[in-house]
C-alpha cells in the first residue's frame, strides 16, 4: 500500500466528517421511525451515537500504536461505505424481532440503537486519531512508533510528499487542530447538503449510496491499484442495492401495501393500503385511516359555539377530515396552517376540502402565523389546534400559558379556542392527570370560561365569553345546534355526545383537573411535556426511568474513565457538554419565540459549526499562554449561558417587531456563533498544551469532547429538559463550566 499523501489524508478526514454528519441524521430519523419520535428517543440515539464515536476515538488511540494507520484508514473507508446500509436495514428489520405492531420500550431502544450504531461510531471515531497520526511528523519517527514506519514501505514517495507539501509546517505544529478543522469542514458541508438538498431529492437509501461512493473513491485514492478491485466490487454492490430500499420499508407496515413514501425535513410520510382502506403514516405511526370519523368532534364542538360565517384558524391536521367538518358550518374564511408542505400535497390525494374557496392554506409554524396575524391585527372567531399531544418540546409550545395568551390576542371577544389532549375513558392515571392539570391551569389563567369534555380524548373549549351549554346541558345544546344546521354525524352520535357531556363524568374530570395548586405549563417550564414523557415511559414498561438513569450514569462513568488522566481533558469534556447545552437551548428558544422554521434551524446548526471552526482558527493564530485562553473561554461560556438564560426570561415580554427582528437576526445568531467559537477555541487551546504523538493527542481530545457532548445530550434530553426546562439545561452548563474554570484556575496557580 502506498503512503497516503497529506492532501489525500485531508480528503479522507473531510469525507469522514461529511459522511458522519449525514449518516447520523439519517440514522436518527430511521431510529425515530422505529422507536417513536419523542425527545427521549432522539436524545438516546444521539447520545449513543456520540458515545460510540468517543469509544471509537479511544479505540483509535489504542490502535494507532499497534496497527498501520494508513491501512486502518483504507479499511475504515471501505467499512463506512457499506455499514450504513446494514444499519438502515437493521433499524427497519428491528420491529420484526418484537411483537408485530408493538411500540418498543426504552429498553429495546437502548439495546437496539447501541447494537446498530456502535460499529459505525467505533470505526469513524478510530479513523480520527489514525488520520492525525498520518498527518503529524512523528509518523516517520521509527523509535517512537515502530508500527508506523513499517507501513511506509514507499519511503521515497513519502519523504518527497512530506517535503513538498506547502501545509507541512502548520501540520507539524497543529495536527489536532488541523484534524479538528478539516473534520468540521466536512461536517458543515454534509449538514448543509443534507438539510437543503438531499432531504428533498433522495430517499435515505439513495443518500447512503452517494455517501458510500464518496468513501469508496477516497479508499481508491488511499490505496495502490492492486487493491482497487475491492472498492470497485463494493461500489457495484451498493449501486445495485436500491431495490432493497422498498423491501426493507415494508417491514414497518405489516399487512399493508405502500402506495407512496416520501422524506420531508420533518418526517417520513407514507400512504399505505390495507384492503380497501387507505392509511396515512408519519414516521411509522398511523395518523389517519379512511372510515375514521373522529374528526367530527374536532369540527363540530367548536363551530357550534360560533355559528355560521365565522373566520376560523386551523392549525394542522385539516386534511384528515377536520377541514371537511368545519366547512359544513359554512364559515366565511378558513386559514389552515400546516408545518410540512408534504402533508398538503398528500392531502390533495385524500381530501377535496382543500379546494373550497374559503380555505386558505399556509405552510409554516402555527405559532409564528399567529404572531404575524396579531401584527396584522387579524382576528378570528375560532382557533382550532389539531396537533398531537405535547410529546416533545416543540409541540409543548402550543399548550403553554404564553401560547394561550397569544391565542387570546387574536381571538374576537366572542371567539373560542379549541384543542384536545390525551384522556381516558374511565380512569386518568397520575401522569395523564398531571398533563391535563398543567394545561388546564395554564388555560384558566388566560381564559375565564373553560369547558372540558371527558373521554378517551379530552376536548377543551376556552373563551372570554360564557360558553354555550356551560350552565345547562352542553350535549343537548350541541345536538340542538347540529339539528338546526341540519348536520348529520356518524361518530358524534347521540351516545358519544351523551357520554362526553355526561354531567357525572364532566364533574368528576372537572374536579380532578382543577386542582388549586397545580402549576401551569409554560414555555420555559414544560410540565405537560414532562408528564407525557413519564406517561410514555410508564406505557413502555414501568422501569423506564431506571433504564435512563443507568444510561446517564454509565455515560458519566465512561467520561470519567476517559478524562481522569488529565485535568485538561475534563475541561474538554465540560466544553463538549456546555456546547451541546447551549446549542440545544438556543435552538429551542428560537422555536419558542419565533416558531419552528426549518431554514433558520438548519442555518443555526451550520452557524454553530462555523463558530467551532472560527474558534479553532483563532486559537491557532493567537498561541500565547494557552492555559489562560482556556480559562478565558470558560468565562465566556459561563457568560453565554447566563446571557441565553436572560434572553429566555426577558425576550418574551417584548413584542415590538423591531426588537424581535434584532433577536432573530442578531442576538440569537450571535450567541450561537459565540458558543461555537468559544468551544472550538478552547479545544485548540487545550491541544496546544499537550506534547507527544499527534494521533494520541487528537484521539484523547476527541474522546473527551465527544464524551462531554454525549453526556450533554443524554442528560439534557432524558432528564434536564423534561424536568427543569431550558433554564435547567443552561444552569447545568454554567455549573459545569464553573467547575472547569476552577480546575483551570488551580492549574494556573500550580504553574
Amino acid at each position, binding site marked *: 500500500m502506498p503512503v497516503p499523501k497529506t492532501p489525500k489524508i485531508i480528503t479522507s478526514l473531510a469525507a469522514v466528517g461529511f459522511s458522519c454528519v449525514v449518516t447520523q441524521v439519517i440514522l436518527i430519523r430511521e431510529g425515530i421511525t422505529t422507536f417513536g419520535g419523542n425527545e427521549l428517543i432522539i436524545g438516546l440515539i444521539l447520545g449513543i451515537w456520540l458515545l460510540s464515536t468517543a469509544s471509537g476515538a*479511544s479505540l483509535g488511540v489504542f490502535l494507532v500504536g499497534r496497527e498501520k494507520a494508513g491501512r486502518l484508514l483504507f479499511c475504515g473507508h471501505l467499512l463506512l461505505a457499506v455499514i450504513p446500509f446494514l444499519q438502515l436495514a437493521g433499524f427497519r428489520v428491528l420491529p420484526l424481532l418484537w*411483537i*408485530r*405492531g*408493538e411500540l418498543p420500550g426504552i429498553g429495546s431502544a437502548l439495546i437496539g440503537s447501541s447494537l446498530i450504531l456502535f460499529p459505525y461510531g467505533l470505526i469513524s471515531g478510530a479513523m480520527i*486519531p489514525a488520520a492525525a497520526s498520518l498527518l503529524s*511528523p512523528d509518523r*516517520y*519517527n*521509527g523509535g517512537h512508533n515502530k508500527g508506523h514506519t513499517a507501513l511506509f514501505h514507499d*519511503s*521515497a514517495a*513519502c*519523504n518527497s510528499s512530506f517535503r513538498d507539501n506547502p501545509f507541512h509546517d502548520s501540520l507539524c*505544529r497543529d495536527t489536532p487542530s488541523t484534524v479538528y478543522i478539516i473534520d468540521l469542514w466536512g461536517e458543515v458541508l454534509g449538514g448543509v447538503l443534507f438539510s437543503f438538498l438531499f432531504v428533498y431529492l433522495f430517499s435515505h437509501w439513495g443518500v447512503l449510496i452517494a455517501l458510500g461512493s464518496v468513501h469508496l473513491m477516497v479508499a481508491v485514492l488511499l490505496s495502490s491499484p492492486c487493491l482497487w478491485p475491492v472498492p470497485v466490487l463494493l461500489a457495484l454492490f451498493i449501486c445495485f442495492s436500491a431495490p432493497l430500499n422498498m423491501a426493507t420499508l415494508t417491514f414497518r407496515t*405489516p399487512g399493508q401495501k405502500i402506495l407512496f413514501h416520501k422524506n420531508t425535513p420533518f418526517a417520513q410520510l407514507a400512504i*399505505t393500503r*390495507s*384492503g380497501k*382502506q387507505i392509511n396515512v403514516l408519519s414516521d*411509522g405511526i*398511523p395518523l389517519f*385511516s379512511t*372510515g*375514521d370519523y373522529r374528526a367530527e368532534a374536532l369540527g363540530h364542538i367548536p363551530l357550534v359555539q360560533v355559528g355560521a360565517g365565522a373566520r376560523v384558524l386551523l392549525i394542522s391536521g385539516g386534511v384528515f377530515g377536520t377541514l371537511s367538518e368545519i366547512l359544513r358550518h359554512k364559515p366565511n374564511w378558513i386559514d389552515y396552517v400546516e408545518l410540512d408542505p408534504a402533508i398538503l400535497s398528500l392531502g390533495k390525494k385524500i381530501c377535496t376540502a382543500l379546494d373550497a374557496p374559503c380555505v386558505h392554506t399556509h405552510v409554516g409554524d402555527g405559532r409564528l402565523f399567529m404572531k404575524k396575524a396579531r401584527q396584522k391585527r387579524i382576528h378570528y372567531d375560532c382557533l382550532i389546534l389539531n396537533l398531537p399531544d405535547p410529546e416533545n418540546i416543540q409541540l409543548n409550545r402550543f399548550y403553554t400559558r404564553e401560547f394561550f395568551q397569544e391565542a387570546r390576542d387574536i381571538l374576537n371577544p366572542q371567539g373560542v379556542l379549541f384543542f384536545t389532549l390525551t384522556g*381516558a*375513558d*374511565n*380512569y386518568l*392515571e397520575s401522569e395523564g392527570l398531571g398533563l391535563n392539570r398543567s394545561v388546564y391551569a395554564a388555560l384558566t389563567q388566560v381564559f375565564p370560561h373553560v369547558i372540558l369534555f371527558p373521554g378517551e380524548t379530552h376536548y377543551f373549549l376556552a373563551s372570554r365569553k360564557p360558553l354555550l351549554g356551560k350552565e345547562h346541558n352542553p350535549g343537548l345544546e350541541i345536538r340542538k345546534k347540529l339539528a338546526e344546521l341540519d348536520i348529520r354525524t*356518524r361518530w358524534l*352520535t*347521540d*351516545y358519544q355526545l*351523551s357520554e362526553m357531556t355526561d354531567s*357525572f*363524568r364532566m364533574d368528576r374530570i372537572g374536579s380532578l383537573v382543577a386542582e388549586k395548586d397545580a402549576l401551569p405549563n409554560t414555555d420555559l417550564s414544560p410540565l405537560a411535556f414532562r408528564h407525557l414523557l413519564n406517561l410514555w415511559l410508564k*406505557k*413502555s414498561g414501568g*422501569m423506564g426511568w*431506571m433504564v435512563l438513569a*443507568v444510561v446517564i450514569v*454509565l455515560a458519566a*462513568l*465512561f467520561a470519567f*474513565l*476517559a478524562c481522569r*488522566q488529565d485535568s*485538561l*481533558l475534563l475541561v474538554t469534556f465540560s466544553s463538549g457538554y456546555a456546547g451541546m447545552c447551549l446549542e440545544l437551548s438556543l435552538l429551542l428558544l428560537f422555536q419558542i419565540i419565533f416558531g419552528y422554521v426549518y431554514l433558520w434551524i438548519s442555518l443555526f446548526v451550520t452557524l454553530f459549526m462555523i463558530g467551532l471552526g472560527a474558534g479553532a482558527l483563532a486559537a491557532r493564530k493567537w498561541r500565547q499562554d494557552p*492555559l489562560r485562553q482556556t480559562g478565558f473561554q470558560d468565562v465566556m461560556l459561563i457568560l453565554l449561558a447566563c446571557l441565553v438564560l436572560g434572553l429566555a426570561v426577558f425576550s418574551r415580554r417584548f413584542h415590538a417587531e423591531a426588537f424581535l427582528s434584532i433577536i432573530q437576526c442578531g442576538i440569537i445568531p450571535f450567541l450561537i456563533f459565540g458558543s461555537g467559537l468559544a468551544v472550538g477555541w478552547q479545544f485548540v487551546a487545550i491541544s496546544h498544551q*499537550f*506534547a*507527544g504523538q499527534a494521533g*494520541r*493527542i487528537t484521539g*484523547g*481530545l476527541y*474522546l473527551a469532547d465527544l464524551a462531554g457532548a454525549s453526556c450533554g445530550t443524554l442528560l439534557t434530553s432524558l432528564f434536564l429538559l423534561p424536568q427543569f426546562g431550558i433554564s435547567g439545561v443552561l444552569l447545568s452548563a454554567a455549573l459545569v463550566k464553573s467547575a472547569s474554570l476552577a480546575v483551570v484556575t488551580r492549574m494556573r496557580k500550580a*504553574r
Partner: protein
Amino acid sequence: MNQHTNQHTNRALKQRTQVKDQSRAAPGTATRREFLKRGLCMTCGGAWLALSPFSLALADAAFDPSDPHLREAYFYKKLKSKEVQCQTCPNHCLIKPDRRGKCGTKVNLSGTLYSISYGNPCTINADPVEKKPLLHFYPGTTAFSLAVAGCNFHCLNCQNWEISQTTPDKTRNQDLPPDQVVRLAQKYDCRSLAYTYSEATTFYEYMVDSATQARSAGLKNIYVSNGYITPKALDRLCTVIDAASINLKSFSDDIYFKLNGGHLDPVLDTLKNLHSKGVWLEIINLVIPTYTDDMEMIKRMCGWLAKNLGPDCPLHFPRFFPLYKLTRLPPTPVEILQKAQETGIKEGLHHVYVGNVPGMGDEVICPGCKKVVVKRKGYTLLSLNLEKGKCKFCKQAVSGRWD
C-alpha cells in the same frame, strides 16, 4: 532519506518543545490493560446499577389483614412453608409469603392469601348496557359499572391499561363496600351492575359479594371478562350473575400468548360452562390486523361457537384502533369486519355484529323474518319490536333477556 526524515522530525519536535515549555504528556495513552480495565469497570458498574434499583422496585408494599379492603381469597390452596397457590384463575400462581400473584391483586400474608381488591373501586360509572357490549340484554337500560385495578392478562392493545396494568394500591380509589354499590346503583336508576373495565376475575371476592347483595335487591349482574377463570370459581360466580360479556381474544393459542399473555383452552371451557349454566352470554372477538383477521381462523372459531354454544349466542367483531402498546398497526378495514360477519352467519350463527364502526351493529334482526326487532342509534334505543322475547312481526323467539 530516512536519516533526513528523522532529522526533520527531530527538529520539528525540538521547536515544539521550545514553544511549549509547559507542555503535557499525550492524553489517552491507553494500553491493552487499561482498555480492558475500562471495559470491565463499565460492565460491572452497569450490572450493579441495573440490578439494584430493579430489586428495590420489586419489593412489595406492606398490607394489614385488618384493612377493610383486604379479604381472604375464596379459592386458594395452602402449601408447605407458608406458600399458597391461587385457584381463582388458570394462572394458578404459586405465591411465597409477602409476595403477590401475577395479577398483583392477591397477596400472601403469612400463609393466607388475601385479595387486596375489596370495596376499593378506582372507577364507577352509569353506562348504557350496550356499552358492555350486550345487545340482547335489557336494551336501553343502564348498568352501574365499576372496576378495581388489576388484570391477569397483559394485552398489548388494552383500552383501559391505566387500570388493568396496575394494582389497587397504586390507584385513586373510592371506599365502596358491596352494600353501598347496590345503593348507588339504585340511586342512579340502574337495572344492573357490571363488573367491567379492568378484569373482573381479579376482584372476584368483591364481585361475588356485591352480586349477591344486588340480586337480593332485584338487580341483575353482568360479568365482563376475558374468561380466564377456573371452573371452581366460575361455578360459584354463576350462582349470582345473569349475563356475561366474554372477550374471546383469538382462536389461536399462540396469538393468545403473544398479545395477551394467556391461553385459549381455559377461555373455551369458561364459555361452555357459562352456556351450560344458563348465563346470558355474548362474545367479543376484536379483529386486529395481521393477528386475528385471518378468515380461516374466524371460520373455525364461528364453527366452534355454533357447535358448542348454539346459533343464538351473539358474536361481536369490533374494529381495532391502535391503543396502548399496539400502536404501529392501522385500524381494521371495515370490509374485513364485514367479511368476518358474513363468515359467522355462514357458519350458522344468528346474531353477528360489527362493532366500533358508526352506523353498524346498531340493529338486532329477527332470525325468522329478518326484520329489525331492536333499533338503536349509537347506544341509544330507538325502537323495540319484541313481545315477551318474541318478534312482533313473525312471533319467532329472539334469544336474549328482554323483559
